[in-house]
């Protein structure tokens, strides 16, 4: 059985002549914030956020030189496994961030480190010695003067060091790892493909992968190996005369791993809460020809939640309706990685609403959506 969650992702980093960073990705941002996330996650590695993120770049994979196969030969540096790389909202924080960050690390070691060594005249400095302080590159070694992006870019372009890097990564329970000879010495990266760009004549150079560590074979039987659990506590009011249910307050407790952009995580959470309230209480449509195929459905009959249906404060105050999100601290296993939440917050809200209704009315409602008509029918039993 093949894993439904063998994921292959690709990304490129370009360093402009003015020292500005561009990220290119095959991911498509559909409002879930991928562009923002993929810009800020290069900051800690490259010393500045990406000035531009180009999404939906389908030309990247063909540039890798890799051939995907359902039976990959991992000893062949140009072989990779067939994977999906969809743009679902849960794929950015873990998968797409990984390939962007790992490609950024590859670029640091193949271009920025050699440029810094030359400018400082310290050939013995290694990658782990480097640190960014207020957007300037420094090193642990004594007496080195901090380097601006301007200065680094100048050195990189004048000496024809790589102007960018293209990385490909494959995940199935673990990331495929390889060794790549960049700047004369091999580095280990959680990538299964690496290409370097050179500005001089638009050249690119594919780097051989050696010492490949294969993905976990046992994980090929798992549908998911990374997920974001979320618990929800729901308080509601029921009008026993009309059967109307109003959600008063919600507390969501979420494990999102490392949070790259807090605003995007809470935004996804709030969107998930609204969607869950919708399909639990409001959204109703028959199947078959009377359903969507009838062509007569619109928002006057298919009720999605409006602002008034959702607790719309993010902090509880007495007498107000609120939804509070508690993000658990990341675990040591997360080791700085995000998990990708998409609408994970949504999943346990329907059962929580059903439980709250049972507390309130003594009736167990187990068929969605729990409409006022079903509430009243349950009360008559």
């Amino acid at each position, binding site marked *: 059985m093949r894993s439904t969650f063998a994921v292959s992702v690709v990304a490129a980093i370009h360093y402009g002549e003015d020292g500005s960073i561009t990220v290119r990705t095959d991911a498509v941002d559909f409002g879930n*914030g991928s562009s923002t996330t993929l810009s800020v996650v290069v900051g800690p590695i490259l010393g500045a956020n990406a000035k531009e993120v180009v999404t939906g770049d389908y030309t990247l994979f063909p540039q890798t030189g890799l051939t995907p196969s359902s039976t990959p030969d991992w000893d062949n540096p140009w072989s990779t496994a067939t994977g999906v790389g969809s743009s679902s909202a849960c794929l950015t924080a873990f998968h797409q961030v990984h390939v962007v960050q790992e490609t950024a690390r590859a670029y640091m070691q193949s271009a920025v480190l050699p440029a810094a060594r030359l400018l400082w005249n310290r050939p013995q400095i290694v990658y782990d010695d480097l640190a960014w302080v207020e957007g300037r590159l420094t090193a642990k070694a004594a007496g080195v003067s901090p380097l601006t992006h301007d200065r680094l870019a100048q050195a990189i372009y004048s000496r024809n060091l790589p102007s960018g890097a293209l990385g490909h990564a494959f995940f199935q329970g673990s990331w495929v790892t390889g060794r790549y000879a960049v700047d004369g010495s091999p580095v280990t990266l959680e990538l299964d493909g690496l290409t370097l760009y050179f500005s001089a004549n638009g050249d690119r150079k594919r780097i051989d992968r050696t010492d490949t560590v294969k993905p976990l074979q046992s994980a090929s039987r798992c549908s998911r190996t990374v997920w974001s659990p979320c618990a929800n506590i729901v308080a509601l009011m029921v009008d026993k005369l009309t059967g109307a249910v109003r959600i008063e307050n919600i507390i969501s407790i979420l494990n999102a791993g490392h949070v790259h952009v807090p605003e995007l995580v809470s935004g996804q959470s709030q969107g998930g809460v609204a*969607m869950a309230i919708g399909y639990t209480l409001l959204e109703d449509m028959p199947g078959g020809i009377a359903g969507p195929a009838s062509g007569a459905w*619109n928002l006057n009959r298919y009720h999605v939640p*409006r602002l008034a249906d*959702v607790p719309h*404060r993010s902090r509880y105050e007495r007498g107000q309706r609120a939804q509070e999100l508690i993000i658990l601290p990341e675990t040591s296993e997360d080791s700085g990685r995000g998990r990708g939440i998409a609408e994970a917050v949504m999943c346990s809200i329907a059962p929580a609403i059903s439980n709250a209704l049972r507390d309130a009315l003594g009736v167990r409602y187990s068929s969605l959506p729990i409409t006022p008509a079903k509430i009243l029918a349950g009360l008559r039993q």
Partner: protein
Amino acid sequence: MTIRFAVNGVMRNVDDARRDEKLIDFLHEDLDLTGTKLCCGIAICHACTLSIKKPPNREATPILACSTPLWMMDGAEIMTIEGVAQGDSLSPIQEAFIKEFSFQCGYCTPGFVMAAQILLDRLMAAPRGPADLDAQIETALGGHICRCTGYVRYFEAVRKTVEAILRRNG
């Protein structure tokens, strides 16, 4: 006969033969003002909300461009999303929506901006203080549909903007 009305401060004349055409089609097709979004087309979702002033009313009120015929525009002044910013300088409510990450796909955003702007203008003209602010925001924006964000960030952006302006005005 001619239907005469102002769109973002510019007078427009439309032949009366077009009286039953929808306002949103006129904005899109004749004026190339495509910021007003069509969604349900039946005045439910509020994505196509505009601001209108029409005598004898002096206050701006919201209208739904998908369901408003052109003949009703005669003598009116309307403002679309394209008329909210002054050049490159965004209005406080637009700034707040960006700062608060209020929208994701952005399709419903022009409608939220227009409705929030109308609320803001009304509160500024006759400030009632923030006592029933939550309820006022709910009344102004409660009918709008957003399928991405769950409304919290729209709501908080409007509340913070109103509170900041009330504070500034003492």
